[in-house]
């Protein structure tokens, strides 16, 4: 099995697909943390909400309706959260933030159960992304390639915005030193809001693209939360490069661990996390040098 080239291609694609999904989730979370020093455990719930909205809307508006509107809906929800909870907890310290957002998870899980029920919801793949394609000797689902391409496109877009535009420079300045940035005339509060809402929208987008491959269940947000946190802690809180590196490490360790060392696979990723935290407590590529 392991000498077959097709096996490696297939597993590499699987790993990339998982990495890109995690990247969409972790990038919002990590930039929110880097900029606002805010730990949002409810980020996974936003992802679940995105998946539910996409699943519901796809019934009437088709897949692309859900795909486009889910991030918007999650962004609106995020804006509501920002003004009701996040803003007042900004300076409350990590403990209070962890607890408030942990409480939010409880509320979110039950709210989705109340609205959409306990049963998993399925969502159809749009016809031209359905089916398989031959690639380097393996048959691979087109939809999963689409997830990889989407992740790469978002990565390129974010890199461009963060490194080449004025808004990006302002965000980087804010991550580096938010007080100094405010002194230089940057409206840091408005930037926080913008970044938070964009992070939420990306979580919603991740939910929408994940909906057809994973089943949409009330606890999907809780299930993705730990992998997302591992990604941003391994990569280094607050850094885009860290989120990319963390997502790739997690995706590959998880995927190849599951096929090569099935009895150890899930211990492996936690052992890796512990090793990173012991040797590089700030993560592999921290935002601040």
């Amino acid at each position, binding site marked *: 099995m392991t000498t077959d080239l097709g096996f490696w291609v297939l597993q590499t694609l699987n790993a990339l697909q998982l990495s890109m999904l995690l990247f969409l989730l972790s990038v919002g979370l990590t930039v929110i943390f880097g900029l606002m020093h805010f*730990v949002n455990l409810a980020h996974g719930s936003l992802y679940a909400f995105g998946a539910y909205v996409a699943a519901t809307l796809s019934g009437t508006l088709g897949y692309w309706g859900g795909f486009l509107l889910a991030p918007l809906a999650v962004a609106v929800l995020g804006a509501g959260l920002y003004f009701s*909870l996040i803003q*007042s*907890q900004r300076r*409350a310290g*990590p*403990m*209070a933030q*962890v*607890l*408030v957002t*942990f*409480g*939010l*998870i*409880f*509320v979110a*899980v*039950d*709210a989705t*159960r*109340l609205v959409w029920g306990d049963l998993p919801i399925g969502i159809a793949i749009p016809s031209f992304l359905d089916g398989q394609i031959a690639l380097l000797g393996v048959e691979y689902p087109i939809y999963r390639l689409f997830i990889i391409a989407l992740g790469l496109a978002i990565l390129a877009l974010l890199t461009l915005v963060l490194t080449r535009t004025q808004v990006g420079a302002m965000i980087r300045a804010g991550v580096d030193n938010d007080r100094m940035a405010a002194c230089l005339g940057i409206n840091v509060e408005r930037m926080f809001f913008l970044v938070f809402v964009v992070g939420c929208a990306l979580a919603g987008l991740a939910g929408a693209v994940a909906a057809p491959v994973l089943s949409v269940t009330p606890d999907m947000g*809780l299930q993705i939360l*730990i992998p997302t*946190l*591992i990604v941003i*802690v391994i990569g280094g*809180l607050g850094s885009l490069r860290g989120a990319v590196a963390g997502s790739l490490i997690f995706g590959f360790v998880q995927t190849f661990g599951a096929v090569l060392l099935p*009895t*150890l*696979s*899930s*211990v492996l990723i*936690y*052992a890796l*996390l*512990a090793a990173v*935290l*012991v040797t590089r*407590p*700030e993560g592999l590529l921290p935002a601040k040098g």
Partner: protein
Amino acid sequence: MFTHTPLRLATLALLAAAALTYAAVAGFFGLEILAEIAILAILVIALDLVAGFGGMVSLCHGALLGVGAYAFTVAANDAGLTALPAMILAIALSTALAFVIGAVCARSTGIYFIMATLAFGQMAYSFVFQSPLYGGDDGLSGAPRPDLSALGIDLTDSRAFALYALLLVALAYAVAAATLRSGLGRSLVGLHHNEKRLRALGLTVWRAKATAFAISGALAGLAGCLAAQHTQYVSPGLLSWTVSGEALVVVILGGLGTLVGPILGAVLFVILKHEISALTPYWHAIVGLILIAVVMSRANGVFGFLETRLAARKPQPQVKEAKADA
């Protein structure tokens, strides 16, 4: 530093009296709830010891509890030990594990400490969940209850078991209070306030943190043994991070760093859970809303709120200042 204020002593006495009265009159279901409260109370005492006083917010206490429960069950079933030696072995294992985790995580603070403990907790969870040796996701059954027939006590009786569980809560509380009053406990509180200063005073910081974490782990292991004896069944779910998260919620609802408050929190949490889940399947949402309200109110839980209210009402005695100088 931890002191027994009159309010804390009064609350303890009230809780003890209420628990003993309830244990005497309650029916089977009530006694089961009492044992459930006792298990949670021991776990939150363990968590408050490190989180409330040492600032080490741990998300691996569920795993430490689970390791205690599994070790007890395996030692009793497979190694053929009787309940008491099996308990000692299980607690020793949780203690050793907690010491290692505490030593490794000693350098991390804040969110990194939380994540590091989460990693170790999930490692233990995944190991137990995947390993076929320990029943995997089916769990293990057949944990025995201690045989106290020599003393004329039958622990298979739920009233006797509830009283035994309450006794273990008292023991756990005594251990935690004694730890906090010892030199180690004072160092722990000092570390929470200013680690640099304690380092300058010559304290070996990692050892103090690891030792405190180990004592906390011992208590969590004790809670695990009690949980295994209570349901006589252990499942990997005991080690899950959500158990640790729930314990943290209870500590916060009760009052972080008060030791008495979390016990009160455990009582309220278990009762609320049973009352609300009888009314609606969505009791988690109610707990979540209460949690958000408590944290946003900036009160230190139910007990912390009482303490600050009472302290605000009566003028601060002058004697306290003089004592601190002496």
